[in-house]
């Protein structure tokens, strides 16, 4: 009935590409993590834990929950490093995408419970919206990002920051801003394209 299973470790088809990568890129670190290298993982943690924790805390606000989700994200990074695919973006983006997704999943599963209970949710959201907006003003010291967000129209900027830092869906953002659904959706895209071009990022 019982059996051993030892999955075959295979060299990646991208080894040729890896070999030419400088060893200190986060991508190379993730590949070492994929081989079970714990010291590479420590390095990865030290490199991205500030951004992971900060982003999750920004979305969830509660530091205890943010810690919990941060821990889950890093264990997930460890488990799935074997499946990182550099063609789909940088290692940093891979990790932070995972972090953001986990944070909003947490918000939305908590919210699903709340929504059934009460209509106070709507009033609550407006209050949170004010806090998010305020905090974005306060905390975007990182000059370039701050500067580039400043090049967006107000509706673009609010759509992007409420979605990303606030963890709201675009229909929620549309309600908060009193704007039509389709408009908010396209403003989100237009705003991010403008941000991308201003920051000069391609991947």
């Amino acid at each position, binding site marked *: *009935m*019982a*059996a*051993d*299973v*030892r*999955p075959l470790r*295979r060299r990646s088809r991208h080894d040729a590409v890896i070999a030419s990568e400088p060893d200190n890129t986060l991508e190379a670190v993730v590949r070492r993590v*994929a081989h079970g290298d*714990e010291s590479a*993982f420590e390095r990865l*943690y030290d490199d991205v834990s*500030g*951004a*992971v*924790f*900060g*982003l999750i*805390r*920004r979305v969830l606000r509660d530091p205890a929950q943010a*810690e919990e989700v941060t*821990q889950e994200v*890093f*264990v*997930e990074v*460890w*488990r799935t490093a*074997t*499946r990182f*695919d550099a*063609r*789909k*973006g940088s290692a940093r*983006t891979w990790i*932070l*995408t995972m972090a*953001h997704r986990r944070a*909003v*999943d947490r918000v939305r599963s908590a919210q699903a419970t709340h929504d059934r209970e009460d209509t106070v949710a709507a009033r609550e959201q407006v209050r949170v919206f004010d806090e998010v907006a305020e905090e974005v003003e306060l905390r975007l010291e*990182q000059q*370039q*990002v701050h500067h580039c967000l400043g090049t967006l129209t107000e509706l673009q900027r609010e759509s*992007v920051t409420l*979605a*990303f*830092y606030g963890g*709201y*869906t*675009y229909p929620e953002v549309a309600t908060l801003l009193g704007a039509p659904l*389709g408009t908010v*959706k*396209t403003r989100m*895209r237009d705003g*991010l*394209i403008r*941000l*991308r071009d201003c*920051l000069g*990022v391609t*991947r």
Partner: protein
Amino acid sequence: MSPDIHTSTGAYAADALPPAEREEVEQHLADCPACAQEVIELRAALTRMADAAAEPPPPALRARVLADVRRTRQLPPVLGPGDSRGRSRWWWAGTPLQIAAAALLIAVVSLGVLLVQRQHQLDEQRQLVAEITSVLNDPGRAVTTADLASGGRGTVVESHGQAVFLASDLPSVASARTYQLWVMSPGHARSAGLLGRGKSAQVLVPAVGPGDSVGVTVEPAGGSPQPTTAPLVTIPVGS
């Protein structure tokens, strides 16, 4: 499909789509390289926004994460001719449970491939793999995981009165001893087989009911009719 699906990339990249639309866009991305590339770029821009929000995590978190990682098995890589579509969707779209289920499935399939030498064994193994797979793939399955007191981790997946027990990272036991699996109900235990000598194991546990637990003990080689040592772990079925 909405006509303006190409304009959904921003909301998709920022995780701002409601679930139904998110799936629609994911399907679209598989067929639209322009949108897929745009999502990569917009996510890179969002990464900069994430960096701008960075703040130091509590120092104690580092040790907790590292301890967790030390006892967590990594997923096997995706094998075979790279279907980059399917691949990207694993880590963009997969929930942890889907990813775990996929890993289990891969493990089970390798079980079918690795184990068998003779035809009747093959048939038996196929039957076993089919049963294990049907439990793991049931959307209504209940999954419970717990650590063994001596190290390693056990997971019980239950579906319609059948369970699969999966063990990983088991420390080896002395050659005169073996891990044995039990179905335990109050005042009663029945053997569900031995776990073999590997670090991981998969066992089909038929006929489990509400209130049952699955337990693991260390027994003399060959196994015991009843447990002779305290369980290293007991995992309730279907909770």
